[in-house]
């Protein structure tokens, strides 16, 4: 294998794939970066077995030549040293060559490195994904989907399946759902005609992978292609492939949890609510569950209060746009409420309650796509 490449392009790709590489891995080969040279470009792969990132550097793009003198082949290089070497090389072009004894030579200007490589055959084979089972979403929409749901995944491993986000396709809608059994976040988007015949119906993507994906994707209008196989999911942008393993098992049925009628409906300004709950939570933090109290009053007034006997208490009145239905006193976790309000991304919210001991849902006023559900806390 041999090629001469622009250092900046190589550096960008190395940085991308390094995000997947973990120093604490049980499989020795995964401490390396796989380099593959093909006639049309060079592909780098990094993996910690949960997620794998592939970055492709094309031979040329828009008339600019990035790579020259490609001799096809592949090798695995130690990820501990390679990025630093590339960063500190003296010149803008890098020549990388691997011989049949797995020796890698990196040349740039007058400096020359010799590294011991590993056999690329030892590297895990990532599944070949078929493009016919895929669909496309704009990157910024996907990032939004992730942001609005992933915070609600469970962080404890007692029910491993809940550490993931359930992605399912039903009724021409794509639905992302995450829950830790105390709260639930869901976001639906309508699917276009061409994506109707998607082969999968429901998969669970680990929350950690989605957080990582969100970091890597840039905020653009360009499309991300998503394909699902039996055991992996692939998110593909132009030159970056992000693969994640899936969680094994059946996701609990969540649609029954969402109440379909309500006794009290509160309309209010998202920002005002968020800020007053944030203030009330300052004193609630000492408390175990971070609990704040929420009470409806006459004249569209809401009272938000919190009390921790050893610290003090706080009471705040907020004016709602309107309050319909029965009077209500309810307590809930301020953290969950704040997370939910932040994820709404709308100026006005509608909160539907069905009694003090029943879960309540928060939605933006103008659409049904985002739904946040929170279980109240029982207080005496």
């Amino acid at each position, binding site marked *: 294998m041999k090629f001469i490449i622009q250092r900046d392009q190589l550096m960008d790709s190395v940085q991308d794939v390094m995000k997947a590489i973990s120093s604490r891995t*049980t499989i020795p080969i995964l401490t390396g970066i796989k380099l593959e040279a093909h006639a049309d470009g060079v592909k780098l792969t990094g993996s910690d077995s949960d997620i794998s990132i592939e970055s492709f550097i094309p031979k040329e793009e828009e008339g600019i030549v990035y790579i020259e003198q490609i001799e096809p082949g592949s090798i695995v290089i130690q990820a501990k040293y390679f990025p630093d070497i590339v960063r500190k090389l003296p010149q803008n072009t890098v020549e990388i060559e691997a011989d049949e004894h797995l020796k890698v030579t990196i040349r740039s200007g007058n400096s020359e490195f010799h590294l011991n490589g590993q056999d690329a*055959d030892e590297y*895990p084979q990532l599944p070949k994904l078929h493009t016919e089972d895929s669909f496309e979403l704009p990157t910024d929409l996907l990032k939004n989907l992730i942001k609005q749901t992933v915070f609600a995944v469970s962080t404890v491993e007692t029910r491993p399946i809940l550490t993931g986000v359930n992605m399912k396709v039903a009724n021409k809608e794509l639905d992302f759902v995450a829950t830790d059994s105390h709260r639930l976040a869901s976001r639906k988007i309508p699917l276009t005609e061409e994506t109707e015949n998607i082969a999968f119906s429901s998969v669970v993507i680990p929350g950690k992978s989605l957080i990582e994906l969100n970091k890597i994707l840039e905020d653009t209008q360009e499309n991300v292609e998503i394909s699902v196989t039996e055991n992996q999911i692939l998110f593909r942008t132009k030159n970056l492939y992000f693969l994640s393993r899936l969680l094994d098992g059946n996701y609990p049925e969540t649609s029954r949890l969402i109440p379909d009628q309500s006794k009290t409906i509160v309309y209010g300004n998202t920002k005002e609510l968020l800020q007053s709950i944030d203030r009330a939570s300052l004193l609630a933090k000492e408390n175990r569950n971070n609990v704040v109290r929420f009470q409806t009053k006459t004249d569209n007034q809401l009272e938000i209060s919190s009390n921790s006997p050893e610290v003090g208490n706080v009471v705040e009145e907020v004016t709602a746009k309107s309050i319909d239905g029965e009077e209500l006193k309810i307590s809930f976790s301020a953290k969950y409420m704040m997370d939910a309000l932040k994820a709404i991304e709308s100026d006005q919210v509608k909160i539907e309650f069905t009694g003090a001991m029943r879960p309540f849902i928060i939605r933006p006023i103008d659409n049904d796509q985002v739904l946040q559900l929170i279980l109240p806390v029982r207080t005496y």
Partner: protein
Amino acid sequence: MNTWSDMAMTQPLVSKMLTNSISKDRVSHAYLFHGSKGTGKLAIALLLAKSIFCKNKELGEPCNKCKDCQRIETGNHPDVHKIIPDGKSIKKDQILHLQKEFTYTGLESNQKVYIIVDADKMTNNASNRLLKFLEEPSKMATAMLLTENSQSILQTIRSRCQIMSLQPFNPSLVQEKLQEKGLSGANAKLMAALTNNIYAAMKLSEDEWFANARKLVVQLVEVLQAKPEESMLFIHNHWMPHFKERDQLHQGLDLLILWFKDMIYKHIENEDAIIYVNHMDKLEQFSMHWSRQHAIGHLYKIMEAKRKIDQNVHPALVMEQLTLQIQR
């Protein structure tokens, strides 16, 4: 030992059982391989893993050439998880990691294999965690537990595994093989008594430390017999500086056990079984001094000392106590 037919030479019973279950596609969800050191537990486990993953197997024999086989051999297969004790025991975190692994789908296929080396070294916490997914096996996972002492594994774990007992090799067979490799008769006999693993035996016989250890053991017995009042000095000046590590001390005591065994053989006139053939004269002399009953008593004492070392008793104290007990 890369094929089942090779394996059948040394472990005929287990190989037969496993090849049958492979060819009938009835591989159990959990196996417990137990057998003494060097009986090829890990080799069998890896072979079984290859048979599960290899795509071009013929009559249950893995090809040893494909990527899957090679990566299992080098430990790089992403769906084969090997757990070895981290320090003295297998910790809860290691099993937790495994548990997390099992909530994910496989990287290349949905078939997974996990191999737990020295499974008796699991902490209680770790064993109970492991039990959780031995009890509810997923269809595509195969567990292989390796141990030298199946009795110290939790009863509840044992009952959920198919137990495979590996036969210890015949010492005379090992001795023959070692002699073929160029060891002297006496040496080969000693090595065969200590280990079943040809490779380990060869390494041991070339080790200078071990040669000195043998000398020290004979010297210790001499001191104990001739000048018991000096035995404490001997322990502190010569024995302890040489046997610094716990493993080394175990080896020293193993050698001592062989010596007293020889003494018993001498008493019952089974001279073929004697291992220290180079020291026949001394054995003769000492067997006058220590009766058969004494020798048996000493063997118990040495075993007791070995147990104490495992229980973290200070090694110097263990040795002092042992020498006092043997003097009498």
